[in-house]
């Protein structure tokens, strides 16, 4: 369809930061010779508008009159490209969400212009390149790496977009029947694979026999509903299955481990756990806080920007749909990537380069979280080669709600109301796609599972839901996530039944078949159960908030799910079968410890250089480039920021929020994860994740006795008994420790089959459990930061240092893994956490830092960088388990250790509070900005704090501005 084209670009005498950034991106992607790039924003408008209308609209709305100019091209005009430039144009592929186009239409409407179709594109005029086919392919390749993603965008070279997409072909509205009768298991599995259903033979057979009993074939929509609801993503078939492990039979792993800890602990602050979208925990007499962490790995591997963004959007909706709606107050995010300096030759075919993934993911989180007005307050990033095919993107959200609204229940007769974004073909089969492994072709085969988010639509949904919640207008709410309406309505209807009219759903564009509407994972949608008497008020309120809302159907009382389109029945399912008909999986698990050995390294010659190398490790180094792109201040609840110290660049262990404005009551939020330990022993990985999360909480001033935790698994192929055995081993270690710590699990999630198949090999991620910890505290004024505060203060190391360099950053810097991964001694660890908490509440310390990657040496350096002070450390003073060489003292990653900065006159009180927990004064804070490490009388290393800072900031200084500041 031909359209008007309007190009908006910077005036010739104005700076063009967007063009400059594109030049940097193309150059970084390996294209040399570019002398300049000018950026253009392009708009497409329906040809029905007159030239005068278009001109006026471009002048008044599309163009910034101070710094920009515009050019209008009439429909069908194809101006010849300028001779001295190459133009790369990036157009969203048909069906991909284009949020800006919606705003353009809104502005047309505000200006009383005719409502016409609208679209957008971006364009970069590249100067300095020759005209040749080689240059063309190089430029397009660089643009794919640095500017666009083929999966959701089309790249045009020296040509213009054709216009707006025309009307799609009409959908097939017929009820499609899928005969299963008589098929053998192989044929059933083949049918599942062909349809992208991700159901195995047992499951297909259960469906077959159910419909045999009914004497009919399932419809396509019924089969899709079953596939969505029974997906690993929705049902957690592995973790709820029966596992045979080391002679034991574990029935429902999740229930008999994680959930059992929570049940047995029975902490009184748990309001609602494992039954809702998020775990709900008491905050004060009126309100509760809730928390949820999700993964969005598969979509982020293929389209990092859209995948991460919609991950953030999804977990926000989870919290919004908790209880009778919680108000989201904070985001957290944790990523695992392959090293960003991975050589191009080492990149398996079908994988995006880790630096591309990192930048895309960060931009995705930024461009969703920031517009939502939810601060991203905490996170971490981890690196290992084995994440190359399966980067991990964990996204978390915290919400607050009145405790009186913590429980929900839909009733028969309640209206099913869909709220928010329109339904399109985006994200079809996301739930089932996430249950399969990735391979070299995934990028091209699964593009439909990837979505682009529209945060402003979600913001409107949030505003509308909160307004309706305040007036008590609905009886239940849930988000549309994996499986779309099918999962959301199916879940809410459990025990009730539902009658759904699919043609009531507003569509982004025509042409969707009923089953597509039903399982589409289009973003920004919620489903509410609304008592009929309150329906009018709810619909009016949604309209006032500019949020689209429609009645999709009615909840029934006969436990049947009936789905219609234009009054034709496309599904009539027994909800009992849908929810309980899934055959239980029986899985074999075994565990054999890998045969790693401790390396025999020559004695460390230069401990100073070793420290700089450790600080420059991607896992340890400053994440400031990432942190600064996130809004961590919005909502004005921040009382402990992600960066701390005199120049706000030191690392914080945890975030502190005071979410009720004017009140000092707060929440401390932290994470723990170390994938490398998993390669040695998954039990060590699991324990250390929990201990690290708890250390971070306690070091910041959180209360270890009022802390809840979340378990988020990312694992390999659990059909491999060893791989599942590793998971069981990790889980049991995690649960034993959580029981000792008395920290209940309140929510969790798992992402399995994180493997990438190339022609040569299968790359499996190290099994990861991210532990997120949230503590409720009475007074944020008793929280601390890690940056050194004053010359002459004593540095006190709490906890015992052991020979535990296995999986450490120090070994990694030597190219080794080792065997002695850190383990946690539960009782001693618990005593340490509580003793340190007591001491900090008694204000015995002015700063505190947990000891993790890089050991005491990295911790001292980070504290010094934050405070712009120095430290003199005597390693010989450290409490150890037996004799330990100074290298191990510096870099061992033994758990349950803290470094405290204690004013000299507070030492007696500290001693009294720590009791029999091992600790020692190991040094002093110095005004001279130097880090000095000695082993008794022997000077070991002297490092200038500025050098440490430079080493620590350089690896992820992706704008080149952080290290510039050091010399200032």
């Amino acid at each position, binding site marked *: 369809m031909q359209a008007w084209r309007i190009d908006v670009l910077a005036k010739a005498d*104005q*700076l063009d*930061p*967007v063009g400059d*950034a594109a030049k940097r991106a193309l150059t970084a992607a390996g294209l040399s010779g570019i002398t300049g790039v000018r950026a253009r*924003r392009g708009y497409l408008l329906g040809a029905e508008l007159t030239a005068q209308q278009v001109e006026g609209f471009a002048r008044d*709305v599309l163009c*910034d*009159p*101070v*710094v920009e100019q515009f050019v209008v091209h009439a429909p069908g005009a194809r101006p010849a490209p300028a001779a001295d430039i190459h133009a790369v144009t990036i157009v969203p592929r048909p069906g991909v969400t284009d*949020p*800006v186009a*919606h*705003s*353009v239409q*809104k*502005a047309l409407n*505000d*200006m009383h212009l005719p409502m016409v179709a609208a679209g957008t594109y971006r364009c970069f005029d590249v100067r300095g390149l020759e005209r040749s086919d080689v240059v063309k392919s190089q430029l397009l390749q660089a643009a794919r790496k640095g500017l666009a993603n083929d999966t959701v965008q089309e790249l045009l070279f020296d040509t213009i977009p054709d216009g707006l997409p025309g009307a799609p072909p009409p959908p097939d509205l017929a009820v499609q029947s899928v005969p299963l009768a008589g098929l053998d298991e192989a044929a059933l599995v083949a049918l599942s694979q062909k349809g992208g259903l991700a159901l195995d033979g047992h499951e297909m057979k259960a469906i077959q026999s159910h419909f045999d009993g009914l004497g009919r074939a399932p419809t396509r929509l019924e089969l899709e509903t079953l596939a969505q609801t029974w997906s690993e993503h929705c049902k957690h078939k592995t973790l709820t299955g029966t596992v045979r492990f080391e002679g034991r039979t574990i029935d429902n792993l999740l229930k008999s481990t994680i959930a059992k800890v929570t049940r047995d602990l029975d902490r009184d602050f748990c309001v609602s756990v494992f039954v809702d979208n998020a775990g709900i925990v008491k905050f004060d007499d009126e309100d509760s806080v809730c928390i949820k962490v999700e993964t969005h790995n598969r979509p982020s591997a293929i389209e990092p920007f859209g995948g991460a963004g919609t991950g953030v959007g999804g977990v926000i909706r989870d919290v919004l749909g908790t209880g009778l709606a919680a108000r989201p107050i904070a985001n957290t995010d944790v990523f695992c990537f392959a090293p960003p300096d991975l050589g191009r030759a080492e990149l398996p075919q079908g994988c995006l380069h880790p630096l591309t993934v990192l930048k895309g993911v960060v*931009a995705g989180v*930024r461009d969703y979280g*920031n*517009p*939502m*007005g939810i601060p991203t307050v905490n996170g971490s990033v981890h690196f290992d080669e084995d994440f190359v095919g399966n980067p991990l993107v964990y996204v978390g959200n915290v919400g607050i709600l009145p405790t009186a609204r913590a429980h929900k229940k839909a009733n028969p007769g309640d209206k099913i109301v869909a709220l928010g974004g329109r339904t399109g073909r985006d994200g079809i089969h996301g739930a089932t796609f996430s249950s399969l492994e990735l391979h070299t072709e995934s990028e091209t085969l699964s593009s439909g599972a990837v979505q682009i988010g*529209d*945060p*402003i639509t979600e*913001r*409107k949904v949030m505003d509308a839901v909160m307004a309706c919640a305040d007036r008590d207008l609905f009886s239940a709410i849930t988000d549309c996530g994996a499986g779309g309406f099918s999962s959301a309505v199916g879940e809410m209807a459990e025990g009730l039944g539902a009658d759904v009219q699919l043609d009531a759903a507003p569509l982004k564009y025509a042409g969707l078949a009923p089953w597509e509407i039903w399982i589409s994972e289009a973003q920004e949608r919620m489903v509410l159960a609304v008592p009929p008497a309150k329906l009018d008020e709810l619909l009016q309120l949604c309209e*006032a*908030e*500019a949020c689209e809302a429609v009645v999709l159907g009615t909840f029934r009382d006969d436990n049947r799910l009936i789905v219609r389109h234009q009054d034709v029945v496309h599904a009539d399912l027994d909800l009992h079968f849908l929810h309980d008909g899934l055959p239980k999986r029986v899985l074999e698990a075994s565990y054999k410890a890998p045969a790693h050995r401790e390396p025999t390294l020559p004695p460390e010659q230069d401990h100073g250089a070793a420290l700089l190398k450790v600080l420059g490790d991607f896992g340890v180094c400053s994440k400031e480039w990432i942190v*600064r*792109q*996130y*809004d961590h*201040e*919005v*909502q*004005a609840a*921040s*009382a402990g920021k992600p960066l*701390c110290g*005199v120049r*706000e660049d030191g690392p914080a262990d945890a975030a502190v929020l*005071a979410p009720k*404005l*004017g009140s000092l009551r707060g929440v401390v939020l932290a994470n723990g994860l170390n994938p490398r330990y998993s390669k040695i022993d998954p039990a060590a990985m699991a324990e250390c994740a929990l201990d690290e999360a708890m250390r971070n909480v306690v070091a910041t001033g959180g209360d270890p006795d009022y802390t809840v935790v979340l378990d988020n698994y990312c694992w390999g192929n659990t059909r491999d008994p060893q791989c599942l055995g590793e998971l069981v081993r990790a889980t049991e270690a995690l649960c034993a420790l959580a029981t000792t710590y008395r920290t209940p699990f309140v929510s969790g999630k798992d992402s399995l089959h994180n493997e990438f198949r190339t022609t040569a090999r299968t790359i499996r991620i190290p099994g990861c459990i991210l532990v997120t910890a949230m503590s409720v505290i009475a007074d*944020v*004024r008793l929280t*601390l*930061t890690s940056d050194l*505060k*004053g010359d002459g203060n004593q540095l006190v190391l709490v906890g015992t240092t052991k020979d535990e360099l296995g999986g450490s950053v120090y070994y990694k810097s030597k190219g080794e893994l080792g065997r002695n991964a850190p383990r946690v001694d539960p009782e001693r660890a618990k005593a340490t956490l509580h003793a340190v908490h007591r001491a900090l509440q008694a204000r015995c310390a*002015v700063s505190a830092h947990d000891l993790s990657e890089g050991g005491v040496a990295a911790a001292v350096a980070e504290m010094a960088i934050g405070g712009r002070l120095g430290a003199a450390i005597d390693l010989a003073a450290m409490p150890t388990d037996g004799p330990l060489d100074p290298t191990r003292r510096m870099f061992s990653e033994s758990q349950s250790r803290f470094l405290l900065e204690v004013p000299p006159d507070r030492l007696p009180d500290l001693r009294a509070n720590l009791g029999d927990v091992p600790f020692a004064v190991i040094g002093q804070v110095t005004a001279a900005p130097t880090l000095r490490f000695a082993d008794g009388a022997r000077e070991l290393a002297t490092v200038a704090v500025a050098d440490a800072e430079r080493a620590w900031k350089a690896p992820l200084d992706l*704008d080149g*501005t952080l290290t510039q*500041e050091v010399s200032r």
Partner: protein
Amino acid sequence: MSAPKALILRAPGINCERETHHAFTRAGATSEYLHIQQLLQDPRQLDRFAILAVPGGFSYGDDISSGRVLAQEMKGKLGERVLQFVDRGGLVLGICNGFQVLVRLGLLPCTKARLEEEVTLTHNLSSHYECRWVTLKTEKSRCLFLPAGLLLRWPAAHGEGRLVARDAATQQLLVDEGFAAVRYVDDAGEPTERYPQNPNGARLGIAGLCNHNGRVLGVMPHPDRSYLPTHMPDWRRTMLAHGKLPEDGDGMVVFREMVKVAAAEG
């Protein structure tokens, strides 16, 4: 003297309304939310208020350019009325996205007392969003409520905050004629164009503007995220040095002084 009433404007994508509401309430105003749709239905509602606040956020996603779509929506029905509101003694505060909206609307700097776009707030030189604390100096300006000579720390959090005037004469006028009410300063307290003290590359370090009669103020950094003592990034050091927290954070002065002036005029 009754509490001045502050209208806290809501709109799709505006997301700092709660903290702005709380800050004005804490300063003694009676704060009330009004959605742009309600206000457009009956613009006369504006006359009930002494203060109009346009909070920060991403109105309409900042699609096309920051604040553009909301400004366009307001222009026809509300633009002139806001101008009258100001002429009749109303006070207006635009923070971050709110500042961008007021600039697009032509309400700032409004050097000639009529609505036209004299300046813009455009892409940061880094070309991306950035959140960091900055040091600001309040200049001797036309602003009726912002005391001059203060050094303040507020967080900046935006992707399009680089102030550019439409010509060199306007640029100079902003500084020389008292429109540039707030500027980014370096460690020595001098206005700066240098990153990161100036996070976006704004010419002459201009971080905030007032209008010709000093009743409208727009600022890119956020007083609404720095009005409580625990908002400040270094409150723990302050507490160590003084034994207790101060009453306010650095942003509170804007709300207090605005409410004070509104009450005195009320």
